[in-house]
Structures are given as C-alpha cells and as structure tokens.
C-alpha cells in the first residue's frame, strides 16, 4: 500500500513495520528513487540506535558456539561490480542505472533488510567505473595475455582473458541466456588439487558483458555453474562449461 508520499514508507520500512508484499512494493519504488534510498539509510541509522539501547548481556556459551560455527562456515563471495560495458553506458542513460539498481534491490529483498546498502553499493560501482576501465585496458594490452574462447551449450560464447604476469583476468561473454530471478551464474577458479574458490557472480544483463575477475593466482581453470541468486560458498551444481587457463 503506497501512499501519496512514498517517502513516508521509509520509516515503516526501517522499523520493519511493513508486510512482505509492502516491502517489495517499496523496494521497487526505491530502485527508481535514489533520494528514497538515502532517506531509508538514514532512517535505518536511527532504528539501529533503538536496538543498541535494548542491549543485554548475551547468554554464556553462545560466543563459543557462534565462533566455532563461523570457523567451519565458508563466507559468501563479494558481489562483483557490475559489467564494465554497462557502466560506461550508465552515465549517459540513467534508466540503465535504475534497472541495475532494481536488480540489486531484488537481491537485497532476498537477503532481507539490506536494501539501502545494496542501493548505495550500486551507486558506488558507478564511481569505480573509471578505475575498472583502466584495469581492462592494462589486461588487454599486456604482452602475455591469453584468450580462451568457448561456445556455450546454454547460449552465446564466453572468453577468458588471463595474464599470468599481471595475475589478472577478465571474462567476456556474448548472448548469455537470462536465468529466473532466483538463480544466478557463478564463476569459479579451480586450482590444482581441485581447490575451488568463487570468482564472482554473473547476471545476464546485456548482449555483451565484461567482468573483471579476482586475481587467478594458481588457478588452472575457470568454471561456471548456476547457483541461487545470492551466490554459493561452494558450487552446488555441475559446471556448465570449463575453460582451461594457460600456465605462465
């Protein structure tokens, strides 16, 4: 239920006074309203004080249990910055920004309560665009950069660019098949000994996409799987495709 002034819902949202459906409606609105995202973040700051004021001594033994559980629980991969090609266009076409924000907000709704941050994060990525573009330029110009291309059985093609000298890599794909909203492509580095680590998440957003990957280090291959929309700590499905990376 959106009132005449949707800004008013920022308070109800920050205090978790909205029902699930209203939250989603509000988040869709925020996706198109940067001011609302800022307002929501401020309202959440005030709400956080109310939690701090209610502090109590936590139960004995809980600390050890939580630390032990964390020690055996892998962390989620950081969300990769949006695609570079997308970013360049964002400056001239704000609508694309909104679409990207809508996507990040939808992901936030799934996580719960993190909308404002995801939104700010998306704004941040825009500012990082320039340095990202410089990274790509350096990789593409490096003398040892190798390109490994594969046609993808699930549509389009994917190319990995890797420079061992720079310890830098990027992934380019064309015509990636979009997935349902609750799924996402996730890239993985596979190092000798079958050690797998996340190389980031990949949304099908435009015909041609470029993603900066984390440093490959000893990775011998790049693989892609389909995962739940928030990404996984370890692959939960079989790889769709694997690219063997040239060694130094």
């Amino acid at each position, binding site marked *: *239920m959106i*009132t*005449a002034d949707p*800004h*008013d*819902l*920022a*308070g*109800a949202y*920050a*205090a*978790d*006074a*909205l*029902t699930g459906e209203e939250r989603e409606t509000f988040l869709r609105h925020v996706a198109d309203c940067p001011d609302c995202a*800022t307002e929501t*973040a*401020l*309202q*959440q*700051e*005030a*709400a*956080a*004080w*109310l*939690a*701090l*004021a*209610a*502090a*109590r*001594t*936590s*139960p004995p033994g*809980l*600390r050890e*249990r*939580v*630390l032990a*559980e*964390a020690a055996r*629980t*892998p*962390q*989620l*991969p*950081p*969300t990769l910055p949006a695609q570079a090609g997308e970013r360049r266009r964002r400056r001239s076409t704000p609508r694309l920004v909104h679409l990207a924000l809508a996507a990040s907000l939808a992901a936030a709704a799934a*996580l*719960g*309560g*993190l909308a*404002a*941050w995801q939104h*700010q*994060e998306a*704004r*941040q990525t825009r*500012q990082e665009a320039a340095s990202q573009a410089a990274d790509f330029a350096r990789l593409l110009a490096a003398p040892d950069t190798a390109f490994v291309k594969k046609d993808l059985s699930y549509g389009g093609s994917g190319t990995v660019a890797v420079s061992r000298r720079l310890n830098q890599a990027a992934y380019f794909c064309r015509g990636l098949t979009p997935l349902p909203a609750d799924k996402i492509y996730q890239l993985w580095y596979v190092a000798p000994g079958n050690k797998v680590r996340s190389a980031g998440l990949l949304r099908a957003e435009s015909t041609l996409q470029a993603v900066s990957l984390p440093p490959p280090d000893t990775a011998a291959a790049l693989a892609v799987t389909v995962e739940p929309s928030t990404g996984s700590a370890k692959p939960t499905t079989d790889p769709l495709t694997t690219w063997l990376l040239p060694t130094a």
Partner: protein
Amino acid sequence: MAKRQAPGAGHIRTSETDRLLVSVAAGSQDAFARLYDAAAGPIYGIACRVLQDPARAEEVTQEVMLEVWQSAPRYRPESGHAMTWMMTIAHHRAVDSVRTLRRSAERERAVSQHESTLAFDDVVETVEALGEREQVRSCLKELTAELRQPVVLAYYQGLTHTEIAAALSLPLGTVKSRLRRALTRLRHCLGAPP
C-alpha cells in the same frame, strides 16, 4: 545533525566496528570474535524484546551473527556503518520470527484485540526499561507521545503499521508519516550509531 553526511557521500567517519567488519570480510576470525563482543549484546537484547522469549532470542542471535560472518564480504563501509548494517539484519530476523510465531499460533487476532489497552502502558514501560543507553531513552522521551507510540510498537514489539493503526485508532497514512518523523527526530537527537 548537519555535520553528518548522507551515506554514499563517501566521507563517513569510519568507526572501530566498521574496521572490524572489513577485517571479517577478509576472513579474519579474530576480528569476528571482537565484532561478536561489540554486537552480540544489542542483537540478543533486541531479539529478546521483540520475541519475549530468551531461548528463541538466543537462536536468532546465533543466526544473525552467522549471517554477519557469511555476508561480511558484501558490506561496503562507504555505504553505512557496520553497526547499522548488523542491527538492520538483526531486527528484521527478530520481527520475521515473531510474526511467524504469531501466525502459526494464530495469535494475531488475540494480539490486536489486546493492543488498544496494552499499547500505552507498554510504551511507557518499554522506554523505562531501556537501561543500557540513557541517551536513547532521553531522546525517546523527548518525542511527543504521538510520535513515540508508533515507533516503540513497531520496533520493540514487531507490530505492522496496520496493527499499529488499529491499536492506536489512527489512519494508516498517519502511522506511516509518524514512524518516519519519529525516526528522523531520533537521528537528529543521536547522530550515527558507533
């Protein structure tokens, strides 16, 4: 507070907990232990208050701390304070949990029947019981009753704005705008969380 910049402005003062959360994002279990010491009390406290059930609140605290550990790599200090980020997760989980319990126990109707009589006393009691942060209590007290009631009912008792409207016999739109005004005034009174 005029000196504070809006999130995203890129000039937010980094607090100790922000730095800890960044270290946690890099996988530091030592930083996570220290973050636990800073955050577990408020998380457990708000869960207790919303759920009114220490055992369930303990479970929620454990779930929230684990979510903090897992999601830390997605935290951006430029976007807001770690404490706000963690409290947002905690409160959302606690409210989710209490609403599920209320639904499954079919207590929702019973709750709303009692609200109109309980609401006012509860608000006063709840505010008085906030021992940990004198500053927050005094800022809450500075609010007029009409702003204080909705925010206390929403935040500390996990009521939806519809339930609050029913409890206070107010139009829905009034509840929404009062929630926002109450939080705005609190923030002006308190600034950003540590």
